[in-house]
């Protein structure tokens, strides 16, 4: 297999403000266009140099992006249909595309009015047809009240608690760490709103074992990145961030969540070993990790499936400040979906790039050289990238 190690780079990042109040003033497309333009500006290139687009599933199409951005030479356009795993999975496809010459520069936007528009919690529960496995959810889950992502995943969290003794306090340690990091990030929606473990435990139950503070935010905002070859990246202004290894995978079966032989297997179970092998590094070499945190338990589960700790060891791993900045493996240094904003995980890639450029301000991880970013989507699709400066 052709190894793409260090052959492609992220050369531009862009973000809008992240807000949780009525009316960002921009449409879903408008938000993403703003982030996209900023990513291209950040790279020091012209929109005319962009010839690849990878929109997020169901949040826009390449044609309208190109028409608005003035991308006249669009020759590579595709979307990876793995929900929140799509941004990182798109890095992989973009790296393949630029390395084989299918495109010179691929723009990957994501964003939505997840607060002021259709609320994130409603999008899937009222229209499952957008999901792979949507027909299964409609016919076999919804009639029994399993209607939304926190409910799907709480089934796994409950079983993990039974099998491994994982506790509410351990899930809380994840929420508290993300919130602590958000205090160091002025663009985080939860900046200025600290939270203790007691606050976490007192938050109302949403779908047992998930409390309110186990659940990600619903916010307005967009982010984007630009990918090109390492060769082209050398001539650009900013310090390129190299894609060392990237992979994606799916649980089995991916379209049905209850009949998996291994209930804790996710797409990452497949993707992580491939990405680490391609990069030629090991989990213990990693300086920080931006883990897709739709809910707290998914962070714990991905830490296990990535190999940062063993299966069942996630609860102990997240305790004692280990995942906080200054700890052994800082996780979600920006605050994550839980405390920065829900930008579909694209904000995780942007944050990893900032860390590796040394642009993370008060939350900078000292001597950050190797970072991991994961994505998680639908019924457990996974993706993982290892980035370096």
């Amino acid at each position: 297999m052709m190894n793409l190690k260090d052959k492609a780079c992220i050369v531009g990042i862009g973000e809008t403000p992240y807000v949780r109040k009525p009316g960002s003033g921009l449409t879903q497309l408008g938000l993403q266009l703003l982030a996209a333009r900023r990513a291209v500006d950040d790279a020091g290139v012209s929109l005319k140099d962009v010839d690849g687009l990878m929109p997020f599933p169901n949040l826009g199409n390449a044609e309208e992006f190109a028409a608005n951005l003035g991308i006249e030479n669009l020759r590579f356009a595709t979307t990876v249909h793995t929900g929140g795993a799509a941004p990182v999975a798109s890095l992989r496809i973009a790296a393949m595309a630029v390395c084989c010459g299918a495109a010179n520069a691929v723009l990957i936007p994501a964003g939505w009015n997840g607060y002021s528009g259709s609320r994130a919690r409603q999008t899937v529960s009222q229209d499952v047809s957008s999901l792979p496995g949507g027909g299964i959810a409609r016919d076999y889950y919804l009639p029994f009240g399993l209607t939304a992502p926190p409910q799907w995943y709480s089934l796994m969290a409950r079983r993990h608690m039974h099998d491994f003794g994982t506790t509410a306090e351990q899930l809380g340690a994840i929420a508290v760490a993300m919130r602590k990091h958000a205090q160091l990030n002025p663009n985080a929606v939860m900046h200025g709103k600290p939270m203790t473990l007691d606050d976490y435990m007192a938050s109302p139950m949403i779908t047992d074992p998930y409390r309110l503070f186990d659940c990600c935010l619903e916010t307005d905002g967009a982010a984007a990145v630009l990918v090109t070859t390492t060769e082209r990246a050398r001539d650009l202004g900013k310090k390129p961030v190299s894609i060392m290894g990237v992979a994606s995978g799916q649980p089995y079966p991916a379209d049905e969540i209850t009949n998996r032989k291994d209930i804790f297997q996710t797409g990452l179970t497949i993707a992580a070993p491939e990405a680490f092998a391609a990069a030629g590094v090991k989990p213990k070499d990693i300086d920080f990790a931006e883990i897709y945190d739709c809910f707290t338990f998914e962070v714990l589960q991905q830490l296990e499936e990535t190999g940062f700790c063993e299966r069942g060891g996630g609860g102990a791993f997240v305790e004692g400040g280990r995942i906080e900045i200054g700890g052994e493996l800082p996780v979600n240094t920006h605050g994550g979906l839980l405390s920065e904003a829900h930008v579909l995980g694209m904000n995780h890639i942007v944050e990893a790039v900032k860390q590796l450029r040394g642009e993370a301000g008060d939350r900078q991880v000292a001597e950050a050289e190797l970072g991991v970013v994961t994505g998680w989507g639908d019924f457990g699709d996974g993706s993982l990238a290892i980035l370096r400066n």
Partner: protein
Amino acid sequence: MSEYKKPLPELDGLTAEFYGWCKKGELRFQRCLSCNGWRHVPREMCPECASTDWEWQRSSGKGKIFTWTVAERPMHPGFADAAPYAPVVVELEEGVRVLTEMTDCMPSDLVIDMPVEVTFEAVTPEVTLPKFKKS
């Protein structure tokens, strides 16, 4: 008769057959005639051996609770008045698992591995749902 507000399965293809058996008071799953594997949800082909020969075979209807959640805050308008309620995964003796609900216990009574058995609830004239009770 008050209007049933919760979402219903779309009775089409294999799903119509599955719920058709439920309406007759029988819990049946597909069983592969080549490798004898049981499967759920319904599939066109056996994922173990790629055979397309199968039949609906009757389950003992007995199993145990594999996992559950308690929905305290409903996220679908059809369940707005139902909380707290508990979607439950039951693992049947045949090995397949179903997402269902209990009819005779409170969410606080649920325990993993609790023995349960199927019961049927005709929620509309067309649709009967397989639910479970303590065994």
